């Protein structure tokens, strides 16, 4: 199905010719390239309609954004990361598409066309970070199996759509409602593969910042980002942001499937996170909201600075929506910390840019670190909290620059 669409594949060689080595260097930085004898270097590859991105896997398509795209408040849609769990990704004809609302805990099943969604409910737009739970998995030590994401499995966008709670209000939810379950049109190759289905606790589903979105950065959602609609769960990791959404079920019992009860889980009591009580087991909990984090975006580890002039550091900070209180920078390996300047605030679910300038006093190596704190009271740890699936890597980043 996909190859018949005639995907444009650009080779690394032609990319180098087009864009120069800097693109590849940025790609290597974002992917935290570790060269070993059998590890393949990340390559840039182009999905139809997209810029060249760092290819993690071809099928299902998992592509990360080179961090040189993180300079802007909103990540260009054609450079936005792509993550799928399954390889059957239908191209949806909106004439045939319906959003089905059902489940055992509502009394009035409904279905909507895209036009009905657009016109029968209040339209809202929020800026929100879409962050893969496994972003930066490749930084864990010891390494963790899975897609070896660098720092680019995230992006910030303006999402426009309707509130899920407004849509559910039409369906007469019962008092027995416990969870709301979401399914999209993508599926595995085999019938035996569990469909990618996620579920939210009722309160999160009814949050005013949980949307059924049909636009991204002012344009209709492109295919790779969930056309015609995807779920937006502002502040929670992207595993819940179901693409090609076509079924919503309100349930009186916990959703029982691989993707809720086996995958995307964390050891209990290791993270200070929002709760999903109906999905807690004896030893694990489902991953929920985003942890406080930051990223230096304009300098790379080992970068040479050729004069004793001011060095400008740029970066990003984000959290689950409590809001960033500050970003501290150390240029002496953590011995002392100074505040960075926070740039424009685009809303509490958006990432936030920051800047910091310092003038090296002498030639030598400088270990530069960035550490964000949130209104939740949380601050990035120096060491990431180990967990079997490699989620929530939010350790303070440390890069060394050489002033010569």
């Amino acid at each position, binding site marked *: *199905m*996909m*190859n018949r669409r005639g*995907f*444009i*594949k650009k080779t690394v060689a032609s990319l180098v010719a087009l864009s120069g080595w800097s693109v590849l260097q940025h790609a290597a930085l974002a992917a935290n390239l570790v060269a*070993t004898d*059998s*590890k*393949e270097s990340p390559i840039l*590859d182009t999905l139809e309609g997209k810029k060249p991105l760092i*290819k*993690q*896997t*071809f*099928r*299902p*398509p998992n592509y990360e954004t080179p961090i040189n795209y993180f300079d802007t408040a909103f990540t260009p849609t054609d450079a936005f990361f792509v993550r799928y769990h399954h*390889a*059957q*990704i239908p191209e949806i004809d909106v004439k045939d598409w319906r959003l089905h609302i059902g489940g055992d805990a509502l009394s009035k099943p409904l279905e909507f066309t895209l036009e009905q969604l657009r016109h029968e409910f209040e339209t809202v737009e929020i800026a929100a970070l879409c962050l893969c739970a496994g972003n930066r998995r490749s930084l864990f030590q010891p*390494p*963790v*199996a*899975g*897609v*070896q994401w660098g720092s680019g499995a995230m992006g910030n966008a303006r999402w426009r759509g309707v509130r899920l709670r407004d849509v559910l209000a039409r369906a007469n939810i019962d008092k027995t409602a416990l969870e709301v379950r979401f399914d999209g049109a993508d599926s*595995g*190759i*085999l*019938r*035996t*593969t*569990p469909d990618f289905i996620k579920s939210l606790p009722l309160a999160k589903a009814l949050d005013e910042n949980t949307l059924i979105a049909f636009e991204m950065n002012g344009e209709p959602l492109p295919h790779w980002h969930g056309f015609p609609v995807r779920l937006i769960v502002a502040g929670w990791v992207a595993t819940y942001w179901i693409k090609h959404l076509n079924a919503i079920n309100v349930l009186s019992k916990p959703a029982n499937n*691989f993707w809720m009860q*086996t*995958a995307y889980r964390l050891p209990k009591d290791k993270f200070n996170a929002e709760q999903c009580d109906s999905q807690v087991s004896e030893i694990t909990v489902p991953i929920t909201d985003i942890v406080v984090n930051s990223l230096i975006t304009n300098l790379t580890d080992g970068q040479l600075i050729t004069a004793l002039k001011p060095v400008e550091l740029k970066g990003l900070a984000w959290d689950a929506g409590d809001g960033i209180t500050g970003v501290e920078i150390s240029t002496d390996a953590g011995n002392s910390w100074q505040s960075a300047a926070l740039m424009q605030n685009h809303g509490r679910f958006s990432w936030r840019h920051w800047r910091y300038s310092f003038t090296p006093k002498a030639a030598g190596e400088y270990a530069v670190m960035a550490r964000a704190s949130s209104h939740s009271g949380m601050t990035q740890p120096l060491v990431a909290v180990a967990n079997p699936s490699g989620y929530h890597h939010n350790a303070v980043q440390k890069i060394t620059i050489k002033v010569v």
Partner: protein
Amino acid sequence: MRRLCLLLAFFVSPAMAGEESVRLKDGEGKDKVITQCGLCHSLDYIPLNANIMDKAGWEKTVNKMIKGMGAPIEDGDKKIIIDYLVSHYGR
């Protein structure tokens, strides 16, 4: 194998452009890995996870594919696949 053929009869594998460029290391069991693992996902998942998992790790991953993801891999093939992955992409 019969079950696999029956399952395959219902689906056309949606290969993605570029994935034919993935080359696995030569060795016993490579063919089984290509046909069985490559049924549902591109083979770049394997070198992507090189040097991360030991024997127990690859066993866990292959078992996850069978029990969690519904891969119809028979016991004989499972051993061949695990041996190949450990030998060529093990930690």
